């Protein structure tokens, strides 16, 4: 049991570290961000420039084969790179979907022509990708989706709507799951496509979240044409293509759900007075800090166990569902504790209260979303119960019925 690099990992880490030091700014604090002060187009341009530089060094797609424009490296090298990059200021969220799920899916299912056309340029940051799966009537139950792809000559015509699409507003392409056969059962008649987001008939509307942020969009399709050459994977086999995309997504969860909210709470509780003493001396506050640490550092440790499995050539499985359950809940309870610390004053928004209150307040407001997005708490628990503990699946009456018969 150790946290040490193998000699190969250590060599790779040194190489990456040297490259990052020469090409990026070190992160100095929690509030230090890439592209601070830039407006959105400037930020995007800076992000793309960064991605191009990263690709030139070979780090844009470490586990991809060299012939696809990747580095031909190992998952362990990807982890080492991510650990080192986290110490520097690099763009958030912009390429997460591209590199994390969309492009690996293209790499896995795409035709040679698709790979040539899409991969290398996207690794270089020339194009941003998004992922068009969820719909208003298809959240937890993705198999219920109703976006229609109808054959039309040599191509397809898309009509329908997606929702909760990250980066739809900045994306050049998306992988789109649509229903192509209404006479098959719900998860069978689906097909995956590559969509040009600039195609006529695609309309993107940002969603205002309960937290007053805008991280997602609705995307509407009116007679959008897609050539059959942009079908991704076999016709009516889209469910399998989607599952492989979601598998890629799972492991990246950990990074989103660890954190240092407990350390922020320590800082706040030092400044706040309860009775006549610092709140940090109150056993209830201390217990809350300890529980936040247990959750957040626990998530990090569970992820490290997963990384160790990757290093051994295994792949982490459905037990990663625990990460999201623990981490999202910690945002909610830890964020609430931060707000409670100040009594009535704690209700004042951070803009008037002080910058150190911003992140805890934001975590509290965003937590309900974190408990829903990417699989609700209930979906995670079902996954653990069924796929880890071997308990029976839910009773289903809709599994083998033609989708057409389920409608209405």
């Amino acid at each position, binding site marked *: 049991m150790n946290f040490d690099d193998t000699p190969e990992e250590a060599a790779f880490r040194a190489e990456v570290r040297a490259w990052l030091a020469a090409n990026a700014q070190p992160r100095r604090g929690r509030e230090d961000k890439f592209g601070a002060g830039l407006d959105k187009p400037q930020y995007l341009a800076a992000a793309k420039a960064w991605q191009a530089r990263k690709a030139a060094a070979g780090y844009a797609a470490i586990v991809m084969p060299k012939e696809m424009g990747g580095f031909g490296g190992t998952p362990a090298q990807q982890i080492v790179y991510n650990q080192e990059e986290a110490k520097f200021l690099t763009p958030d969220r912009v390429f997460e979907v591209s590199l994390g799920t969309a492009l690996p899916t293209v790499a896995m299912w795409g035709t040679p022509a698709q790979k040539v056309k899409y991969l290398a340029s996207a690794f270089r940051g020339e194009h941003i990708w998004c992922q068009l799966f969820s719909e208003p009537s298809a959240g937890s139950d993705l198999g219920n989706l109703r976006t229609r792809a109808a054959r039309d000559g040599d191509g397809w015509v898309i009509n329908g709507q997606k929702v909760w699409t990250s980066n739809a507003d900045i994306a050049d392409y998306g992988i789109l799951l649509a229903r192509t056969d209404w006479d098959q059962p719900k998860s069978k008649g689906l097909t995956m496509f590559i969509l040009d987001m600039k195609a006529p008939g695609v309309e993107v509307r940002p969603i205002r979240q309960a*937290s007053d942020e805008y991280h997602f969009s609705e995307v509407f399709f009116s007679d959008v044409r897609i050539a059959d050459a942009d079908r991704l994977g076999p016709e009516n086999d889209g469910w399998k293509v989607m599952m492989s995309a979601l598998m890629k997504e799972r492991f990246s969860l950990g990074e989103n759900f660890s954190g240092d909210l407990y350390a922020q709470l320590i800082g706040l509780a030092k400044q706040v007075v309860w009775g006549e003493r610092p709140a940090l001396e109150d056993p209830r506050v201390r217990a809350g800090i300890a529980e936040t640490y247990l959750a957040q550092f626990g998530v990090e440790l569970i992820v490290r166990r997963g990384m160790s499995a990757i290093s051994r050539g295994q792949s982490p499985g459905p037990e990663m569902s625990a990460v999201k359950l623990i981490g999202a809940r910690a945002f909610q309870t830890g964020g*609430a504790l931060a707000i409670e610390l100040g*009594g*009535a004053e704690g209700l*004042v928004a951070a803009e008037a209260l002080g910058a150190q209150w911003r992140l805890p307040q934001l975590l509290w407001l965003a937590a*309900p979303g974190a408990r829903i997005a990417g699989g609700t708490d*209930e979906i995670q628990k079902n996954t653990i119960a069924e796929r880890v503990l071997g308990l029976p699946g839910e009773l289903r*009456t809709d599994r083998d019925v033609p989708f057409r018969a389920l409608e209405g």
Partner: protein
Amino acid sequence: MNFDFSEDQRRLQAEVRRVLADYSTSPNVRAVLEGRTLYCAETWRQLAALGALGVALPEAQGGVGLGLLELCLVAEEAGRALAAVPLLSSVYLAAEALRRAGSPAQQALWLPRLASGEVIGTAALAAAAHRISTAPPPCRVGDALTGTLHALPDGMAAEICVVLAGGELALVELNGPGVTRQALSSLDPSRPLARIEFAAAPATWLPGDGAATARAVTLGAATLLAFEQIGGAEAALYMARDYVLQRRAFGRVVGGFQAVKHKLADIYTKLELARAHAYFAAWALASDAPELPRAAAAARVAATAAYTLAAEEGLHLHGGIGFTWEMDCHLHLRRARWLGQIIGNEHLWRDALATALIEEAA
């Protein structure tokens, strides 16, 4: 024994509910949420017209001459309707302080105008047990008041403020000299806050033991807020229940999944517990019973827990759509947090409950 409200009281409640359903609509609440107005004036006028603002004030002072039990039911309906009005500040705190301890002149001057809603009051009746800011609290200098109030509810909308300063209660006109106000954005923007600085602000002083009055009014406010909280919790519960009965997934109504059913049953259970304690506190408040300190604290803690759970899990049960700005789920989430902290958070009140229990046991 009749541990419940009377039929007359229930009729009054139904009337308030009907009026709030018409006026405290989501668009009206959102006008306050989005900062376009300090409170929902139309809702306020309608409540005044119903007599709801002065329901516990004597007729001689412009009130309706009913009592605190009726005010509890007004509070429950205000909570249910997410009413964006200064009931806590003006009615539960300022008017109650003046009703209990104002001089005849103070009462004659202000109570009728508070009852009619023409004047909005607010109050700061306890030294903050939990403090972030260090500026010193208000204290008496001669007949004037000097010091700072952080995070005063409805501080921008109010004309008068009752302030506990060194064991005495001061009444200050907030539009008068020596008062500086600064609007503060709030985690529930539909219930705004303000920072108030008094610099030798002229004050009139309420006769009698100000600390005792402040304590009694605070216990009353805890009880009344508990009713707002159970109203809000019930609204959040049934909003979620209705949603899961129409939303379908995996070929079934989502409300048929056992995890969903049990989550709603958990909310219901916490709500019934809070309701039982709130009713007991209402009885203790209305009958001036010695159990009031424990009853009010228990109601406050149980109601805070119930509304927090109902708001958090009610949103969650809506899935993605619940996390959009357009749905009212986050209004409950924000309001539950605001109501749960504005006169002291649940840790404070839970400890107050323990203190009351220990004192009764001694």
